[in-house]
């Protein structure tokens, strides 16, 4: 069945709301407006204002209320409009949700799902273009998912809701309109990375909104006789080391593609793990393509220059192959 990433997300939400009375959705403009990215469009009419709950512009309080509701026996899905605004809620996510289980000696569980849009590429300038997945992936106690395909958009929510711990889902804003074939049955596994393209010459490791760009780069490389493998991390915490290392061992070269800034990036973490675990499998130094270390500009040509692009990925690969 052909569907879009947005429709797949909506179908997943609808299914979760229908299946479990403890599930409810809350966030800014999720109801009457239909969701800032139109993901929850129509759900208010279907499930009513108690379960599709519009909130004031109070990220810290409604994320905290989501944590409280989770402690109180509900399974809330909190939508934070974008990762940029999630910084206003960081205290509750990092100081409460992530550590209540451990700090209470295992007494409390926070079965909360937080969804947020992330990423750049739509000319909405620096304050609306952050890619800060690595900040969340840094924190023990959280799980971080980055669905990059229609299938994952459809399946990951069910698995996030089944998790007794807080799960943060990043939906890259450039993906919502992407259409694709939804296989039946779709997977709901959220534990492992996935090889999206088999190859043998170089392993391209990426996640989220950079996956389509990386697949495009792989096609460009194929035309030049370079057979690239593409690994979609899918889960940024905990990272699936086994799949990464298997791909690196097979291709012996790796480039990490990450829309985050290079310094302290998730790419840096993946590279460090490869060095720790698969150093002797490598035939060349590792490379990465990240965002330039500048605030993301508004003008189209400047924004494009700031972000990872297929041509930059191709160039990085060629640099490794000499």
């Amino acid at each position, binding site marked *: 069945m052909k569907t879009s990433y947005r429709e797949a997300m909506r179908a997943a939400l609808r299914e979760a709301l229908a299946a479990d009375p403890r599930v*409810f959705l809350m966030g800014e403009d999720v109801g009457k407006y239909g969701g800032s990215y139109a993901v929850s469009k129509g759900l208010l009419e279907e499930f009513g204002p*108690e379960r599709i709950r519009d*909130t*004031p512009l*109070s990220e*810290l*309080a*409604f*994320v*905290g*209320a*989501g*944590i*409280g*509701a*989770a*402690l*109180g*026996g*509900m399974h*809330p899905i909190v939508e934070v409009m974008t990762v940029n605004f999630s910084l206003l809620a960081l*205290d*509750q996510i990092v*100081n*409460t949700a992530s550590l*209540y*289980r*451990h*700090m*209470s*000696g*295992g*007494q*409390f*569980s926070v079965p909360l799902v937080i969804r947020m849009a992330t990423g750049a590429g739509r000319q909405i300038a620096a304050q609306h273009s952050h890619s800060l997945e690595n900040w969340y992936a840094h924190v*023990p*106690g959280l*799980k971080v998912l980055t669905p990059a395909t229609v299938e994952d958009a459809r399946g990951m929510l069910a698995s996030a809701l089944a*998790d*007794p*711990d807080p799960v943060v889902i990043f939906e890259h804003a450039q993906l919502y309109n992407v259409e694709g074939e939804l296989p039946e049955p779709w997977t709901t596994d959220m534990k492992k990375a996935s090889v999206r393209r088999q190859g043998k010459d170089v392993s391209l490791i990426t996640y989220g909104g950079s996956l389509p760009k990386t697949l495009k780069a792989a096609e460009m490389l194929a035309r030049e006789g370079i057979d690239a493998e593409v690994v979609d991390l899918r889960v940024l915490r905990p990272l699936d080391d086994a799949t990464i290392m298997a791909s690196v061992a097979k291709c012996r070269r790796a480039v990490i593609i990450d829309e985050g800034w290079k310094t302290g990036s998730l790419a840096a973490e993946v590279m460090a793990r490869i060095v720790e675990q698969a150093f002797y499998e490598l035939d060349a130094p590792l490379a990465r393509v990240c965002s330039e270390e500048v605030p993301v500009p508004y003008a189209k040509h400047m924004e494009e220059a700031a972000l990872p692009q297929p041509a930059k990925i191709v160039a990085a690969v060629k640099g490794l192959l000499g």
Partner: protein
Amino acid sequence: MTLAPPPSGPVPWEREFALGMVRDMLRIRRMEERAAELYGEQKIRGFLHLYIGEEAVAVGALHALAPEDNIVATYREHGHALVRGMPMRTIMAEMYGKREGCSRGRGGSMHLFDAKRRLYGGNAIVGGGLPLAVGLALADKLQGVRRVTACFFGEGAMAEGVFHESMNLAALWQVPVLFCCENNLYAMGTALARSESQTDLCVKAAAYKVPTLKADGQDVVAVHEAAKEAQQQVRAGEGPFFVEFQTYRYRAHSMFDPDLYRDRKEIEEWKTRGPLHSFTARLKAEGKLSEEQFLALDAEVAKEVEDAVAYAEAGSWEPVEDLTRDVYAP
């Protein structure tokens, strides 16, 4: 500022109930006095925030609540945990960092948790418990459970944005939260008047159309009666309620605090309004308590404290192999 005279007047309670209040205030006082000594002996480390002087608030308010109610507290929560029913042994063991503590020694003084008694911490981020309380109350409302969530916080938390966001959410959604502000006049070392343009705290809550009450936090009778009235309204489904308990801490903010920002005279003046001795004086005047009875009660509490210390001393350390246990569900 001239302080009001010590709380006085008739105690409108049965003798047994009144003695129970004395007992709980005394248990907090003696437990914490001992904890301060143990801190000096380096048995207890880290931060230790004493509630001494403020005991009437936790005791009066918590005795107005039902066992099935939710409690959200701050890092100055030894008293709340104790009155809620957590054994003194368990609290002391947690302060020692022992496995027999409520949180296996992982939280210490600031993070007393008790799922069974619906005590949700022990939160050391100022204002951090407020939205949590709104969420707990929302969960009850959505599940049709008639329960009050009592959320304790200091007046310092009211300068945080999250106070205003949480107040608005609670009122907008009409969820059953009893907001209990323990106004001890100092946010660590900063006096209320030095940090707030509006020092009448009830006005802030009223701005969100939340009904309010002010009570003398040094008077356990006033605290209890105010909390009783407020929780009744909340329980009846009339939305959130805000009570300001005006109190004072006799000790420094924490054991690290040299307490340079307050006048000694001010502290001594407030001590004349002590919650324990003013209340026992009233009971004695009414013939409900004799000095012998008080001393017997004190001796009983002293025993409980020494038992708790012995329990904590004899406790065990969580094995290091368990370090990563409970980061995620097994």
